[in-house]
């Protein structure tokens, strides 16, 4: 896959004569030392990463980690102190102001945390802002604006003002405004963080659905682990202005680069209190080792739309799991029972297992993890999505208290 954006050794230091801090950073001094010695604030330190054509890259970190600064360096809303930002091979960091305006008009669309809609303009006028700046004719831009609004599900709201819309709808306008330009790259700065959790989840789904159609290159900023795992094809984790890990959700779950990432992935408090019992769900269907053969097991799987099924003994203890692929093979071979295709080596956990322990298990597991009691009876199953959902509900109830 080709790289759409390549960021090389990017630094951003706030203050006067920031270059001296870059040297200090290169010598290995920390952000705090530099602040103490020079009074300069380090925003981003030696960041290098690539964004591939057509992927969603999530830049994740806590507030103050430099992620918002970094994304603003990409279109130079914030001037980087040193380093290169190559977009389609062209270094944006050295573009003059006129070239920069052209690049912004042609390649970037940006969506902001607090929507940043223009309150004096209607929804449609907001959506066409970028095209208006570009000098597109009125009819043409309104056509594009209407299409963009339709894409985000706001048909019929064209003549309303932003203040009349709910938060979620306002952010749809923000998204439409960015999409109307048909940019190659979407920069989304905590785009869903200001929305309440249910709407946020809807918007994430819609973004994924939209992305499957429009195939933009998206750089998405988030401080929310679930959001990052849900949206990100790859994730870049930041701390104190530095990139601490880059990779897929799997990589980060399975091999945290350092203690910080590990703590981040733990979701700190919530995942510790979250147990297997609270995130498991009842299996849709189970097979009986004694009564079911490949044919009936396959039928049960098809019926429930699942790709594997847990197999129980007569007294309802867990025997193992059978996959749909194996079952149909066995059927072709004419086998009558499940003995030949039963996978006994499956991950079992007790109901009290914490989410921390579940993460690595789920990252490795090929099948759903089984939750069993002392008698080895199947209580429930956990799939990866359920754990994340459980985590986000944990966040919810924490917020409420």
């Amino acid at each position, binding site marked *: 896959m080709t790289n759409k954006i390549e960021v090389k050794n990017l630094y951003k230091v706030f203050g006067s004569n920031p270059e001296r801090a870059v040297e200090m950073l290169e010598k290995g001094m920390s952000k705090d030392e530099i602040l103490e010695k020079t009074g300069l604030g380090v925003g981003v330190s030696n960041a290098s990463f690539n964004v591939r054509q057509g992927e969603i890259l999530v830049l994740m970190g806590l507030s103050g980690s430099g992620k918002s600064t970094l994304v603003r360096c990409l279109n130079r*809303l914030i001037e980087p102190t040193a380093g290169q930002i190559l977009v389609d091979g062209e270094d944006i960091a050295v573009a003059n102001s006129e070239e920069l305006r052209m*690049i912004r008009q042609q390649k970037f669309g940006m969506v902001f945390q607090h929507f*940043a809609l*223009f309150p004096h303009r209607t929804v449609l006028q907001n959506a066409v802002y970028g095209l208006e700046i570009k000098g597109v004719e009125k009819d043409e831009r309104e056509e594009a604006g209407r299409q963009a609004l339709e894409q985000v599900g706001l048909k019929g709201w064209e003549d309303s003002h932003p203040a009349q819309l709910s938060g979620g709808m306002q952010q749809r306008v923000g998204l439409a405004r960015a999409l109307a330009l048909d940019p190659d790259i979407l920069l989304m700065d905590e785009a869903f963080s200001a929305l309440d959790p249910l709407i946020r989840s809807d918007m994430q789904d819609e973004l994924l659905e939209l992305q499957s159609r429009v195939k933009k290159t998206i750089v998405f900023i988030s401080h929310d682990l679930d959001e990052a795992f849900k949206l990100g094809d790859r994730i870049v984790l930041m701390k104190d202005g530095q990139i601490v890990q880059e990779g897929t959700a799997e990589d980060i779950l399975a091999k945290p680069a350092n203690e910080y990432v590990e703590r981040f992935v733990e979701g700190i408090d919530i995942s510790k209190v979250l147990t297997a019992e609270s995130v498991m769900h009842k299996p849709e269907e189970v097979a009986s080792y004694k009564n079911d053969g490949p044919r009936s097991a396959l039928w049960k799987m098809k019926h429930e739309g699942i790709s594997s099924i847990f197999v129980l003994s007569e007294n309802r203890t867990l025997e193992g799991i059978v996959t749909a692929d194996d079952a149909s093979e066995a059927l072709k071979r004419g086998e009558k029972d499940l003995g030949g295709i039963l996978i006994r080596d499956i991950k079992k956990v007790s109901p009290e297992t914490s989410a921390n322990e579940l993460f690595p298990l789920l990252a490795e597991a090929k099948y759903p993890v089984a939750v069993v009691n002392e008698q080895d009876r199947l209580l429930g199953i956990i799939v990866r999505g359920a754990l994340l959902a459980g985590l986000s509900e944990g966040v919810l109830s924490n917020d409420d208290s």
Partner: protein
Amino acid sequence: MMIPKLPVGEAIEAGIEFLSDNFSFATKAFAEVVETGIDLIVDGMMLFHPLILIAVIALLVWLVTRKRGITIFAGAGLLLILNFGLWEPTVSTVALVVVATMIAIMIGLPLGILAALNGKAYKIIMPILDFMQTMPAFVYLIPAIPFFGLGVVAAIFSTVIFSVPPSIRLTCLGIRQVPEELIEAADSFGSSKRQKLFKLQLPMATSTIMAGINQTIMLGLSMVVIAAMIGAKGLGGEVWRAIQRLDPASGFDAGIGIVIIAIILDRTMQSLGSSAVKK
């Protein structure tokens, strides 16, 4: 040891003298033109029967405010002025205020925009405004005379100086208080400075700018009485004459006239400002 008085005032006087010696031919000519213009406005308005004019004004107020109360007040107030026999001075006062306000806006808007967009300009302009606003308004009358001669133009000159600061300040404030995220949004789409100004900053600052213009008008009105001291006619002139004759009756008549004009202008401008917000 006595420290001799520092000749600050004298220096300013010398400066004014130099300017008036060298440029007063131009400023006096300018004064003639403006004075003729104002006379024309007044004469033009006097051509109509006052009742027709009052009806037209009340209609305008209605169209702008859509409020019954202020419309009735405008009609009744102007009829009262007519009844006082103060119609002509009122017309000339309004003409003076309108001309002074237009000049103040023409100066104030660009300077306000400049101060908002340019940090250096801001640092230079703001202390000057402080100076202009705290200096007693009477003082402006003195240098106005050598440049423009006695009369309405000198009055307009000092009125403009006295009333322009709120226009500048509130224009600047209105533009500066456009949220940073909106500026970023406009920038992120590649807006030029001019596009940003006309598509975002000025529209969003409109209500604040209107408040500034409103204040400019009110300050202008408060200045007309003072300006009467150097020969501006109008309601201020009536008040000034009443002071000299110790004639409370005609003084209050003219004073009430000024209040009525002020209320009509203020309410109308305010509703212009708030309708700008709704758009």
